[in-house]
């Protein structure tokens, strides 16, 4: 099994078919990478929003406690 | 009380036929659509007999398909709104029969008339004579399958506002085999080949649809009644 192309130049051009092959490769890779990145960023956003919610609840709890009112722990 | 296996079928079949018949003017709509849209073909393409004859089997089938699609949207809508659907769903009887009755009624009042009017369209589009009988048979069987599969789409989009376009999008991919086998039956006959095999395949697709579509429809209707 040897490498089919003599040089990087050859590899890019692929006897004239390079444009098609690399177009297909690049678009496919772009889609595949997006498929991985999207759920990861969603995950991060959801975690962040849950964190903010928890912060908000803690502050609400503390501030209502300070006033000496007993609050229901969760709404 | 005669409650045989088929009584649910006959009861809902006759009820729906009567309901359709009471609005006779509505029955003309798919037929008029069929004729008017077929007229668009020579206007949009070319009025030349040779070209139209090549296109005829497919075009006639496609327009019949669209006419069926347009008419199936409200199959369950009235029953859903006036509570008949709920009654059907909670009744202890087999639900498959009423559903098959409704769809059969739809075929009788839409699909069959489309089939019977197709020779007129065939003439306008210069369909060769050999194609006429296959056209009638394939449309008769095919529109029944189209009604069944279309009913699945109607049931799934029942609670939605403006479900019409969505219904079309959902159902069109499912229609492709029916269209392929239907128009190929006609085309084979025109080409001088044996067409009974293709017609048999279409019949098999119809049989499968009769067996399976009611299950999907029941699931979708239960869902819609809860919604």
């Amino acid at each position, binding site marked *: 099994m040897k490498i089919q192309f003599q040089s990087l130049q050859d590899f890019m051009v692929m006897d004239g*078919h390079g444009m098609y092959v690399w177009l297909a490769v690049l*678009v496919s890779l772009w889609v595949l990478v997006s498929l991985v990145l999207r759920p990861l960023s969603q995950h991060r956003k959801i975690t962040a929003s849950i964190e903010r919610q928890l912060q908000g609840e803690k502050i609400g709890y503390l501030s209502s406690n300070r006033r000496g009112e007993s609050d229901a722990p969760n709404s | 009380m005669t409650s045989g296996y088929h009584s649910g079928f006959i009861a809902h079949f006759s009820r729906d036929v009567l309901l359709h018949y009471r609005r006779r003017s509505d029955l003309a709509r798919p037929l008029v659509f069929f004729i008017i849209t077929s007229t668009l073909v020579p206007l949009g393409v070319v009025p030349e007999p040779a070209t139209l004859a090549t296109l005829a089997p497919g075009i006639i089938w496609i327009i019949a398909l669209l006419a069926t699609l347009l008419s199936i949207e409200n199959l369950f809508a009235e029953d859903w709104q006036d509570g008949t659907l709920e009654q059907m769903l909670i009744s202890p009887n087999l639900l498959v029969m009423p559903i098959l009755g409704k769809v059969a009624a739809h075929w009788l009042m839409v699909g069959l008339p489309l089939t019977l009017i197709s020779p007129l369209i065939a003439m306008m589009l210069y369909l060769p004579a050999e194609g006429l009988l296959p056209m009638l048979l394939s449309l008769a069987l095919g529109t029944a399958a189209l009604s069944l599969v279309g009913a699945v789409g109607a049931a*799934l989009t029942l609670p939605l506002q403006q479900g019409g376009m969505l219904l079309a999008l959902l159902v069109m991919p499912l229609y492709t085999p029916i269209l392929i086998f239907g128009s190929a039956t006609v085309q084979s006959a025109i080409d001088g080949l044996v067409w009974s095999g293709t017609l048999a395949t279409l019949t098999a697709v119809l049989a499968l649809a009769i067996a399976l579509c009611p299950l999907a429809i029941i699931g979708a209707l239960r869902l819609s009644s809860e919604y």
Partner: protein
Amino acid sequence: MTSNRKWTWFHRLGSPRWFYHKTSQWLPWLSIVTGALLITGLVWGLAYAPEDARQGNSFRIIYLHVPASVLALAGYYVMAIAGAVGLIWKMKLAYIVMRAAAPLGAALTFIALFTGAVWGKPTWGTYWVWDARITSMLILLFLYLGVLALRNAYNSYEAANKSSAILSLVGTVNIPIIYKSVDWWQTLHQPATIKFTGAPSMHPDMFAPLLVMIVGFYSFYALVLILYSRAEVLQREQKSSWVRELVTDKRDRR
């Protein structure tokens, strides 16, 4: 309850919390395996595999086109089976997996169609040809889009899940019929065409990297399915105590 112990593993499988924790352990390994397979397969196929006698170097697109097609089709079945499990056992996680499978499958179908079209130009001179495979792929894309459209049309989460599950099942039954009918339709009109994959007649040196890519794509599919599902699990279970603990733990560890 009869045979309770036998079914606990199955119902534990349906617990979103169990799923989340188990996949947290698997993810690193799965990512490495996926990356390794895909990179190996792609470099092998693009640079080392011998070029095709008839098609020249453009045939190398096969190393993306075929795996994407395989997974696009398999993915529809994953979606439908997940939907069926959700309908029958009313399992939340099953619906979550079904929802994840839909955009994933649609994207893979798009890759299959795009690479197929690009491959078609040097091979047949046009970007589009009504080849049986490509036409079936296009119809598959419409089936996926239909499921997505139906899901988005419903406002209620539960109703959206149930209806798209039913539609997926209807599509599943249809797919073999569609493929067979398109295949048959194609033979009517073009008796002999260059097939996109002459798999049996492929030289082993060309076939081996293809196999690697197919396995790699399966691995990729599992990876992305899990990623989407985890995000959705967090979203749906955000009010529950285990999620809150998870988030606070993560924050404290930072």
